[in-house]
Protein backbone atom coordinates (compact mmCIF):
# COMPACT_ATOMS: atom_id res chain seq x y z
CA UNK A 1 0.00 0.00 0.00
CA UNK A 2 1.35 3.38 -0.95
CA UNK A 3 1.14 6.19 1.56
CA UNK A 4 -0.11 9.56 0.36
CA UNK A 5 2.61 11.40 2.21
CA UNK A 6 6.19 10.23 2.38
CA UNK A 7 7.45 9.24 5.78
CA UNK A 8 10.94 10.43 6.69
CA UNK A 9 13.13 9.24 9.51
CA UNK A 10 15.58 12.06 10.33
CA UNK A 11 18.22 10.68 12.67
CA UNK A 12 21.43 12.02 14.25
CA UNK A 13 23.48 11.89 17.41
CA UNK A 14 23.59 14.93 19.71
CA UNK A 15 25.51 18.18 19.57
CA UNK A 16 26.54 19.47 16.15
CA UNK A 17 25.03 16.56 14.22
CA UNK A 18 21.60 17.29 15.69
CA UNK A 19 21.95 21.06 15.17
CA UNK A 20 22.72 20.43 11.49
CA UNK A 21 19.84 17.97 11.03
CA UNK A 22 17.40 20.60 12.36
CA UNK A 23 18.72 23.10 9.84
CA UNK A 24 17.53 20.79 7.03
CA UNK A 25 13.89 20.82 8.18
CA UNK A 26 12.41 22.80 5.24
CA UNK A 27 13.55 19.96 2.95
CA UNK A 28 10.99 17.73 4.72
CA UNK A 29 7.97 19.97 4.01
CA UNK A 30 4.98 17.96 2.88
CA UNK A 31 6.26 14.76 4.53
CA UNK A 32 5.54 13.05 7.84
CA UNK A 33 8.76 13.27 9.82
CA UNK A 34 9.97 11.19 12.74
CA UNK A 35 13.02 12.72 14.44
CA UNK A 36 15.39 10.48 16.38
CA UNK A 37 18.36 11.41 18.51
CA UNK A 38 20.15 10.42 21.70
CA UNK A 39 18.76 12.75 24.36
CA UNK A 40 15.23 13.35 25.60
CA UNK A 41 16.18 16.99 26.23
CA UNK A 42 16.18 17.70 22.50
CA UNK A 43 12.43 17.03 22.21
CA UNK A 44 11.70 20.75 22.58
CA UNK A 45 13.64 21.44 19.37
CA UNK A 46 11.10 19.79 17.08
CA UNK A 47 7.89 21.41 18.30
CA UNK A 48 5.05 18.96 18.03
CA UNK A 49 6.78 16.62 15.57
CA UNK A 50 7.23 12.92 16.27
CA UNK A 51 10.34 12.39 18.37
CA UNK A 52 12.15 9.20 19.44
CA UNK A 53 15.12 8.67 21.71
CA UNK A 54 17.73 6.06 20.79
CA UNK A 55 20.68 4.78 22.87
CA UNK A 56 23.82 6.91 22.50
CA UNK A 57 27.08 5.44 21.30
CA UNK A 58 30.49 6.21 20.00
CA UNK A 59 32.75 3.89 18.11
CA UNK A 60 35.06 3.33 21.10
CA UNK A 61 32.58 1.55 23.32
CA UNK A 62 31.57 -1.71 21.64
CA UNK A 63 28.69 -2.54 23.98
CA UNK A 64 27.13 0.92 23.67
CA UNK A 65 27.58 0.68 19.91
CA UNK A 66 25.72 -2.63 19.82
CA UNK A 67 22.90 -1.29 21.99
CA UNK A 68 22.64 1.73 19.73
CA UNK A 69 22.55 -0.45 16.59
CA UNK A 70 19.78 -2.65 18.01
CA UNK A 71 17.80 0.40 19.13
CA UNK A 72 18.04 1.96 15.68
CA UNK A 73 17.16 -1.33 13.95
CA UNK A 74 14.03 -1.63 16.08
CA UNK A 75 13.15 1.99 15.30
CA UNK A 76 13.49 1.47 11.55
CA UNK A 77 11.43 -1.75 11.66
CA UNK A 78 8.68 -0.08 13.64
CA UNK A 79 8.51 3.16 11.66
CA UNK A 80 9.05 1.72 8.15
CA UNK A 81 10.14 5.09 6.70
CA UNK A 82 10.18 5.77 2.94
CA UNK A 83 13.29 7.91 3.36
CA UNK A 84 16.02 7.95 6.01
CA UNK A 85 18.28 11.00 6.28
CA UNK A 86 21.21 11.53 8.62
CA UNK A 87 23.93 14.09 9.38
CA UNK A 88 25.91 11.56 11.51
CA UNK A 89 27.41 10.10 13.43
CA UNK A 90 27.21 6.40 14.52
CA UNK A 91 23.44 6.34 15.25
CA UNK A 92 22.80 8.05 11.93
CA UNK A 93 25.02 5.57 10.14
CA UNK A 94 22.95 2.71 11.59
CA UNK A 95 19.81 4.56 10.52
CA UNK A 96 20.80 4.72 6.85
CA UNK A 97 22.32 1.19 6.93
CA UNK A 98 19.18 -0.48 8.31
CA UNK A 99 16.93 1.87 6.35
CA UNK A 100 18.53 0.69 3.14
CA UNK A 101 18.20 -2.98 4.12
CA UNK A 102 14.52 -2.51 4.88
CA UNK A 103 13.68 -0.77 1.61
CA UNK A 104 13.94 2.96 2.30
CA UNK A 105 15.76 5.43 0.05
CA UNK A 106 18.56 6.79 2.19
CA UNK A 107 20.52 10.06 2.37
CA UNK A 108 23.80 10.81 4.08
CA UNK A 109 24.70 14.48 4.60
CA UNK A 110 28.26 14.58 5.90
CA UNK A 111 28.84 17.09 8.70
CA UNK A 112 30.10 20.55 7.75
CA UNK A 113 32.80 19.92 10.38
CA UNK A 114 34.49 17.57 7.91
CA UNK A 115 36.09 20.21 5.75
CA UNK A 116 39.22 18.31 4.74
CA UNK A 117 38.02 14.74 4.42
CA UNK A 118 34.73 12.94 4.87
CA UNK A 119 33.97 11.43 8.26
CA UNK A 120 34.65 7.73 8.72
CA UNK A 121 30.90 7.01 8.85
CA UNK A 122 30.45 9.18 5.77
CA UNK A 123 33.03 7.25 3.80
CA UNK A 124 31.42 3.93 4.75
CA UNK A 125 27.92 5.20 3.98
CA UNK A 126 29.07 6.28 0.52
CA UNK A 127 29.17 2.64 -0.53
CA UNK A 128 25.42 2.10 -0.33
CA UNK A 129 23.41 5.30 0.20
CA UNK A 130 21.10 6.59 -2.56
CA UNK A 131 22.15 10.20 -2.09
CA UNK A 132 25.61 10.98 -0.71
CA UNK A 133 26.22 14.61 0.16
CA UNK A 134 29.18 16.68 1.36
CA UNK A 135 28.91 20.29 2.44
CA UNK A 136 32.25 21.20 0.88
CA UNK A 137 32.59 21.68 -2.86
CA UNK A 138 36.21 20.55 -2.91
CA UNK A 139 35.25 17.14 -1.45
CA UNK A 140 32.61 16.47 -4.12
CA UNK A 141 33.35 14.51 -7.28
CA UNK A 142 32.02 12.20 -9.96
CA UNK A 143 32.84 9.10 -7.90
CA UNK A 144 32.34 10.88 -4.60
CA UNK A 145 29.60 12.72 -2.79
CA UNK A 146 27.46 15.47 -4.31
CA UNK A 147 27.64 19.09 -3.25
CA UNK A 148 24.50 21.27 -3.15
CA UNK A 149 25.37 23.81 -0.43
CA UNK A 150 25.84 23.81 3.32
CA UNK A 151 23.87 24.15 6.54
CA UNK A 152 25.16 27.71 6.92
Amino acid sequence: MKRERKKILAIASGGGHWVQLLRLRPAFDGCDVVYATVREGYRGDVGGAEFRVIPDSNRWNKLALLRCALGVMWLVLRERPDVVISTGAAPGFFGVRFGKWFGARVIWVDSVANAEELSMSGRKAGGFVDLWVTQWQHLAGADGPKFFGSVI
Partner: protein
Amino acid sequence: MIFITVGTDLPFDRLVKVVDAWAGETGRTDVFAQIGEGGWRPEHIAWSEFLQPPEFREKFQAARVVISHAGMGTILTALNHGKPILVMPKRASLREHRNEHQLATAHHMMRIAGVNVAFDEGELRARLDDLDSLVSGSRIGAHASDSLIRGLRGFIHGETRPS
Protein backbone atom coordinates in the same frame (compact mmCIF):
# COMPACT_ATOMS: atom_id res chain seq x y z
CA MET B 1 27.71 36.66 31.14
CA ILE B 2 30.51 34.68 29.56
CA PHE B 3 29.45 31.14 28.66
CA ILE B 4 32.08 28.44 28.17
CA THR B 5 31.15 25.13 26.53
CA VAL B 6 33.45 22.28 25.55
CA GLY B 7 30.97 19.88 23.95
CA THR B 8 29.35 16.66 25.05
CA ASP B 9 32.22 14.26 24.35
CA LEU B 10 35.57 14.76 26.03
CA PRO B 11 36.64 17.49 28.48
CA PHE B 12 38.87 20.34 27.30
CA ASP B 13 40.98 21.23 30.33
CA ARG B 14 43.44 23.40 28.38
CA LEU B 15 40.68 25.87 27.58
CA VAL B 16 38.98 25.78 30.98
CA LYS B 17 42.26 26.29 32.89
CA VAL B 18 43.15 29.42 30.93
CA VAL B 19 39.74 31.00 31.45
CA ASP B 20 39.67 30.02 35.14
CA ALA B 21 43.09 31.57 35.79
CA TRP B 22 42.06 34.72 33.94
CA ALA B 23 38.84 35.01 35.97
CA GLY B 24 40.88 34.58 39.17
CA GLU B 25 43.31 37.33 38.18
CA THR B 26 40.74 39.80 36.97
CA GLY B 27 38.03 39.06 39.51
CA ARG B 28 35.43 38.30 36.82
CA THR B 29 32.48 36.60 38.45
CA ASP B 30 30.11 36.43 35.46
CA VAL B 31 31.55 33.27 33.92
CA PHE B 32 29.83 29.88 33.61
CA ALA B 33 31.52 26.81 32.15
CA GLN B 34 30.22 23.47 30.90
CA ILE B 35 33.39 21.41 31.34
CA GLY B 36 32.59 17.86 30.19
CA GLU B 37 32.59 14.66 32.25
CA GLY B 38 35.70 14.07 34.30
CA GLY B 39 37.19 17.41 33.41
CA TRP B 40 39.53 19.46 35.58
CA ARG B 41 37.52 21.39 38.16
CA PRO B 42 37.73 25.20 37.96
CA GLU B 43 38.35 27.27 41.12
CA HIS B 44 37.19 30.72 40.13
CA ILE B 45 34.22 30.19 37.85
CA ALA B 46 30.85 28.47 38.13
CA TRP B 47 30.69 25.17 36.26
CA SER B 48 28.75 22.06 35.43
CA GLU B 49 29.93 18.87 33.72
CA PHE B 50 26.97 18.64 31.41
CA LEU B 51 23.91 20.77 30.65
CA GLN B 52 20.59 19.40 29.50
CA PRO B 53 19.55 21.00 26.19
CA PRO B 54 17.02 23.41 27.81
CA GLU B 55 19.66 24.64 30.32
CA PHE B 56 22.16 24.91 27.49
CA ARG B 57 19.75 27.10 25.53
CA GLU B 58 19.15 29.28 28.59
CA LYS B 59 22.88 29.85 29.20
CA PHE B 60 23.43 30.51 25.54
CA GLN B 61 20.70 33.13 25.39
CA ALA B 62 21.99 34.85 28.53
CA ALA B 63 25.58 34.99 27.23
CA ARG B 64 27.18 38.21 25.96
CA VAL B 65 29.99 36.16 24.48
CA VAL B 66 30.62 32.42 24.07
CA ILE B 67 33.99 30.70 24.45
CA SER B 68 34.12 27.11 23.21
CA HIS B 69 35.80 24.24 21.44
CA ALA B 70 35.66 24.51 17.64
CA GLY B 71 32.52 22.37 17.40
CA MET B 72 30.12 23.15 14.56
CA GLY B 73 27.03 22.83 16.75
CA THR B 74 28.21 25.59 19.07
CA ILE B 75 29.45 27.77 16.21
CA LEU B 76 26.16 27.43 14.29
CA THR B 77 24.18 28.17 17.45
CA ALA B 78 26.28 31.29 18.12
CA LEU B 79 25.79 32.54 14.56
CA ASN B 80 22.06 31.86 14.77
CA HIS B 81 21.75 33.74 18.09
CA GLY B 82 23.98 36.61 16.95
CA LYS B 83 26.52 36.00 19.75
CA PRO B 84 30.23 36.65 19.26
CA ILE B 85 32.19 33.45 19.76
CA LEU B 86 35.83 32.69 20.54
CA VAL B 87 36.84 29.12 19.77
CA MET B 88 39.94 27.03 20.38
CA PRO B 89 40.20 23.75 18.42
CA LYS B 90 40.40 20.49 20.34
CA ARG B 91 43.44 18.49 19.27
CA ALA B 92 43.44 14.76 18.64
CA SER B 93 47.21 14.80 19.24
CA LEU B 94 46.44 15.85 22.85
CA ARG B 95 43.62 13.27 23.10
CA GLU B 96 40.98 15.96 23.24
CA HIS B 97 39.11 14.57 20.23
CA ARG B 98 39.06 11.58 17.91
CA ASN B 99 40.61 13.33 14.92
CA GLU B 100 41.91 16.75 13.93
CA HIS B 101 38.76 18.01 12.23
CA GLN B 102 38.40 20.92 14.68
CA LEU B 103 41.60 22.45 13.32
CA ALA B 104 40.06 22.44 9.84
CA THR B 105 36.80 23.81 11.20
CA ALA B 106 38.66 26.63 12.96
CA HIS B 107 40.58 27.56 9.81
CA HIS B 108 37.42 27.64 7.70
CA MET B 109 35.12 29.32 10.21
CA MET B 110 37.49 32.16 11.18
CA ARG B 111 36.62 33.76 7.82
CA ILE B 112 33.08 34.33 9.08
CA ALA B 113 32.46 37.60 10.91
CA GLY B 114 31.78 37.04 14.60
CA VAL B 115 33.84 33.83 14.77
CA ASN B 116 37.20 34.36 16.50
CA VAL B 117 39.86 31.69 16.81
CA ALA B 118 42.65 31.08 19.32
CA PHE B 119 44.81 28.17 18.21
CA ASP B 120 46.53 27.64 21.55
CA GLU B 121 46.46 28.70 25.21
CA GLY B 122 48.71 31.73 24.61
CA GLU B 123 46.42 33.11 21.93
CA LEU B 124 43.39 32.38 24.06
CA ARG B 125 44.83 34.24 27.05
CA ALA B 126 45.62 37.24 24.84
CA ARG B 127 42.09 37.29 23.40
CA LEU B 128 40.48 37.19 26.85
CA ASP B 129 41.75 40.66 27.70
CA ASP B 130 39.78 42.22 24.86
CA LEU B 131 36.81 39.91 25.19
CA ASP B 132 34.39 42.76 25.84
CA SER B 133 35.22 44.30 22.48
CA LEU B 134 34.22 41.20 20.49
CA VAL B 135 31.18 41.82 18.32
CA SER B 136 28.94 39.43 16.46
CA GLY B 137 28.65 39.24 12.70
CA SER B 138 25.29 39.20 10.97
CA ARG B 139 22.95 36.53 12.27
CA ILE B 140 22.37 33.50 10.13
CA GLY B 141 18.84 32.16 9.64
CA ALA B 142 17.47 28.99 11.18
CA HIS B 143 17.94 26.86 8.07
CA ALA B 144 20.51 25.54 5.64
CA SER B 145 21.28 27.22 2.32
CA ASP B 146 18.44 27.19 -0.23
CA SER B 147 20.52 25.15 -2.64
CA LEU B 148 21.06 22.35 -0.11
CA ILE B 149 17.36 22.32 0.85
CA ARG B 150 16.38 22.20 -2.84
CA GLY B 151 18.81 19.38 -3.58
CA LEU B 152 17.48 17.26 -0.71
CA ARG B 153 13.84 18.05 -1.43
CA GLY B 154 14.28 17.12 -5.08
CA PHE B 155 15.61 13.74 -4.07
CA ILE B 156 13.00 13.12 -1.36
CA HIS B 157 10.12 13.80 -3.71
CA GLY B 158 11.70 12.24 -6.78
CA GLU B 159 10.39 8.83 -7.67
CA THR B 160 13.43 7.66 -9.54
CA ARG B 161 15.76 5.52 -7.54
CA PRO B 162 19.40 6.29 -8.23
CA SER B 163 21.50 3.17 -8.68
